[in-house]
């Protein structure tokens, strides 16, 4: 891959550090237990808060035995709607496009099971936990409304975060009537819970009207503003520290009620308070992926080219707020078709409000689309890969725009080669392993937008030849501590070990949101720009300094290499950063940068990452237990900053696809609305033995439009494509088409 991208001031370039498969810079901290997550903080005088969750899904709390809780040894205070300190904002209002309606003991109403209804604060965790149990609430209960037949159906005004619920290009009904073949596919997907290994946690301390909070957060500076607004204090009065997130997957991007409750408890008691959710409390107030019921209708002409894609999805949301899984929109950008229609409906139920969960919309929608494509390939008598290649989108089907880059063709080719796809029998039920197990191969196309948000960064070159770069980035496991540092080091033309990278607290420049798979692109661009700004200032000084070996190089230019500015017209002449600063009598020089997309490029091009996922399943011929014996994914996502970490992200995404396809299902009892499997024994996610063989191929892709770095994202794409690939492999093994996820043994029997 060429490394000649040369943004902004023109003295630095990517390549010395970026692109290297460096091990994680936070690795040693993480393998020695030194990495501190929010709940690891133990300030002096710490109290523990545990909230009681509602045992009903709808109604009112009629009594709480506060006396019993307070009488328990060690309990310091019980916070209920009656004594909860005031908030400056109404938690039932939406204050921001990225804010949810939340529960902060504003009244006695219960709108989902597990909703916080009181907080017990105690000297020990044990006392707080038991105190919360002793509250023994009573209720005025109304019938729970759970599932698609439970609550009110309506047309949502938006899907995802501000997305359009409907899209139409051409006349779908007319196209359907004209099509030579039409296949309608119905797919149901369940509620899914993020279940980051680190439960949501917060430690809050007040000092007058200054607030310090340790809490994992995917959008640190935005969150600081959100917390400040709730307490009527300026954002700069809030310090939010989130150096490590124990997984986020979307659930730690949005302010949630329990965080406010901890801050309120600290206010009420005048002492630092820690509140950590129990695992069972992760199935209520901290979002989930809504269930969907989808219908995908595909039409083809006599040559098996798509004539239309029609995708309708109905998703569940809560009774009091909405986040609609934008599943149908996933069909807009994948396959070439003259006619497209996507639309959404919604159903309210008595659960917590859903939120973005890794690949929101893309994961669910691609699952349905890829099964639909497989069925159409079957109907056409074509190999599924050949059918997809026949319908390859050279331009974005929805907008008609050119892609900023798209190397999906090579993903298909390389993935298929590595997997050994050639020679796959067309008909199902033809393959067995040496033990007589049914074997099936399936594939799917992975796709995810390559967005950019806004971020700022600062770079400081120091007299000792090192640099400090900072942005309030978030590392939830994707590798920000490492990948952003690699970009930062290139930005200042230094080896990574000469660069201190600071991130993860709210007093740094806004690193934007670690979400939408856009963090590396956005915060990375800001860091690179900040570094090159500092280097440009340094070059300006040096080139005007008659004592500098690069004096007068203005026209020819200089380039930053390993802490030196080198004259491009005479590489024997160079000057070190340290010398330049020393002669100028400066101890340091600062640069600033912003990461954001060029609006003209954003308007002109369609920007997506792509991939091809190939799955092999083995299925017991009598008992139908399924194992995904192989997954090969080939992905093209622009410039890869760290192939080692990118492969881990993509592997992890594909394994999320395994969980989606085979395991994950949040079940609420329709009679009570309470979770039936709200723990990690009941809510299955994949374990090590579920994934014997997963492999990621990174396909080269040069992109001159997404941003100056050429970076797209890899965090979420791995799920998309994989779910469908597994479902299609199950069909190929058994002849049975999947109509709902997860694929249960009972469905194959």
């Amino acid at each position, binding site marked *: 891959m060429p490394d000649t991208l040369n943004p902004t001031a023109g003295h630095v370039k990517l390549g010395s550090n970026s692109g290297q498969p460096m091990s994680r810079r936070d690795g040693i901290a993480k393998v020695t237990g030194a990495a501190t997550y929010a709940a690891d903080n133990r300030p002096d005088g710490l109290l523990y808060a545990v909230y009681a969750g509602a045992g009903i899904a709808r109604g009112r709390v009629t009594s709480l035995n506060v006396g019993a809780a307070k009488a328990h040894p060690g309990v310091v205070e019980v916070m209920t709607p009656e004594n909860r300190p005031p908030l400056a904002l109404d938690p039932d209002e939406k204050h921001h496009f990225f804010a949810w309606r939340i529960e902060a003991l504003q009244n006695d109403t219960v709108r989902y099971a597990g909703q916080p209804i009181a907080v017990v604060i105690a000297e020990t965790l044990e006392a707080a936990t038991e105190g919360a149990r002793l509250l023994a609430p009573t209720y005025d209960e109304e019938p729970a409304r759970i599932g698609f037949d439970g609550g009110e159906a309506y047309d949502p005004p938006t899907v995802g975060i501000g997305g359009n619920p409907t899209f139409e290009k051409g006349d779908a009904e007319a196209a359907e009537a004209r099509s030579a073949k039409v296949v309608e596919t119905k797919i149901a997907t369940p509620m899914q819970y993020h279940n980051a290994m680190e439960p949501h946690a917060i430690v809050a301390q007040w000092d007058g009207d200054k607030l310090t909070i340790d809490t994992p957060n995917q959008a640190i500076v935005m969150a600081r503003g959100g917390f400040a607004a709730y307490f009527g204090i300026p954002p700069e009065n809030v310090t939010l520290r989130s150096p490590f997130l124990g997984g986020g997957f979307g659930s730690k991007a949005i302010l949630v009620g329990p965080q406010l409750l901890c801050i309120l408890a600290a206010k009420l008691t005048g002492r630092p308070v820690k509140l950590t959710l129990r695992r069972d409390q992760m199935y209520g107030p901290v979002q989930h992926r809504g269930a969907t019921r989808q219908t995908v209708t595909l039409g083809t002409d006599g040559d098996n080219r798509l004539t239309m894609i029609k995708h309708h999805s109905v998703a569940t949301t809560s009774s009091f707020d909405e986040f609609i899984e934008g599943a149908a929109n996933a069909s807009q950008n994948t396959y070439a078709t003259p006619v497209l229609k996507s639309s959404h409906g919604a159903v309210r139920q008595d659960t917590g409000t859903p939120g973005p969960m890794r690949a929101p919309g893309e994961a669910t929608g691609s699952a349905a689309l890829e099964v639909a494509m497989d069925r159409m390939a079957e109907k056409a008598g074509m190999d599924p890969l050949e059918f997809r290649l026949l319908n390859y989108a050279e331009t974005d089907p929805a907008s008609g725009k050119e892609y900023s880059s798209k190397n999906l063709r090579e993903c298909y080719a390389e993935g298929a080669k590595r997997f050994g796809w050639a020679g796959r029998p067309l008909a199902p039920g033809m393959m067995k392993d040496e033990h007589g197990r049914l074997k099936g191969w399936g594939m799917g196309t992975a796709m995810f937008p390559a967005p950019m948000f806004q971020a700022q960064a600062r770079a400081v070159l120091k007299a000792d030849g090192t640099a400090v770069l900072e942005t309030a980035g978030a590392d939830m496991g994707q590798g920000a501590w490492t990948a952003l540092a690699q970009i930062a080091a290139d930005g200042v033309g230094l080896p990574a070990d000469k660069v201190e990278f600071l991130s993860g607290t709210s007093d740094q420049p806004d690193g934007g949101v670690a979400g939408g798979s856009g963090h590396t692109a956005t915060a990375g661009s800001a860091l690179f720009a900040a570094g090159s700004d500092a280097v440009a200032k340094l070059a300006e000084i040096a080139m005007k300094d008659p004592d500098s070996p690069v004096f007068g190089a203005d026209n020819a230019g200089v380039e930053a290499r390993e802490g030196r500015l080198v004259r491009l017209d005479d590489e024997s002449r160079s000057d070190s950063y340290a010398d330049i600063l020393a002669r100028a009598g400066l101890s340091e020089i600062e640069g600033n940068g912003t990461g954001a997309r060029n609006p003209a490029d954003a308007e002109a091009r369609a920007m997506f990452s792509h991939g091809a996922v190939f799955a092999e399943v083995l299925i017991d011929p009598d008992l139908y237990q399924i194992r995904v014996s192989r997954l090969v994914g080939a992905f093209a996502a622009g410039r890869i900053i760290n192939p080692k970490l990118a492969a881990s992200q993509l592997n992890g995404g594909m394994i999320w696809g395994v969980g989606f396809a085979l395991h994950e299902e949040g079940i609420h*009892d329709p009679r009570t609305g309470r979770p039936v499997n709200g723990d990690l024994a009941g809510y299955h996610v*994949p374990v090590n033995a579920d994934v014997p063989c997963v492999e990621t191929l990174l396909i080269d892709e040069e992109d001159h439009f997404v941003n100056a770095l050429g970076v797209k994202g890899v965090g979420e794409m791995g799920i998309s494509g994989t779910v469908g690939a597994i479902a299609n492999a199950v069909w190929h093994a058994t002849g049975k088409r999947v109509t709902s996820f997860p694929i249960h043994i009972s469905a194959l029997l």
Partner: protein
Amino acid sequence: MNIFDYVRPASVDEAVTAGAQPGAAFLAGGTNLMDLMKIGVAQPGTVVDITRLPGLDGIDTLPDGGWRIGALVRNSDLARDPDFAAACPAVAEALLSGASAQLRNAATVGGNLMQRTRCSYFQDPISACNRREPGSGCSALGGVTESHAVLGWTDQCIATHPSDFCVPLVALGARVEIAGPDGSREIALEDFLALPDDEGPGGAQLGAGELITALILPEGSSAFAANARYVKLRERTSYAFALVSAAAMLRIEGDTIAEARIALGGVAARPWRVAAAEAALAGKAADAGAFAEAADLLVAGATASGDNAHKIELARRIAVRALTLAAVGTPARMPALPASVFANGADAHA
């Protein structure tokens, strides 16, 4: 978790005395009791810590060829005891298919027999549950019932027994040795784990103060060593409770089955053993026809307790599978994925 008194008796007699106090509970590995205490299902007034009682950690062969296994033997130690695993391979395989390595390192033999159901309504103190609170009803009826019983259930309780270990034990006719205020007694494990009836939910037959001291595998338990398997169907490859499971043990002489043992797990409030099914196998050739007949007898009378009728067919099939694998022979080495339908050849692609 409530505040409790904590006592650590020095002898079985002291433990029995302490355990006889109202509200007392014995603590061994803690993998189930601690969990139930955390979710408010168990609220003992006194925790009687028996982990240091002497003499309860032996794995001994008896003069008649049976085994006596101390109640405090850890699951992993029993499974890894080379003599025991060679003699009773299906028991070892069942043990190693249960829970996780960490839990097996803590959980004890006695505790496993006392393991409470994983029925989510039992585990949720707000729900009605006759097993947790006699007379309160059964919220599982009409609820989410994938993991529930298809055999031996009544409207009192439709829960299943979650143990893997107990399945081959019941098949082998294991007995439970119990110390109590009135001396010691022995009871067949199958009788110890009482099924629900029209009056109540059944459950472990242990009186106040009674303490499991040992598990006895009767004479002849080792006779099946060459043809013994445990097979467990799961919705996740590992670290999951059985949807259904089966332990099958055969004593094959020449071309015929001299003696057969088979029990099902995940289908009832105790491992399910049917004498007629075993009798039907005796004297037959170890073939598909015989296995199918036995499996039919094993699930005879099964009825869905909810949306779980598919488990009846799965139970029948897993019985056939376990018998088939047992007839093939006990593997020379414990499979990498014990009891899994993917136990062999899973790395074929690697």
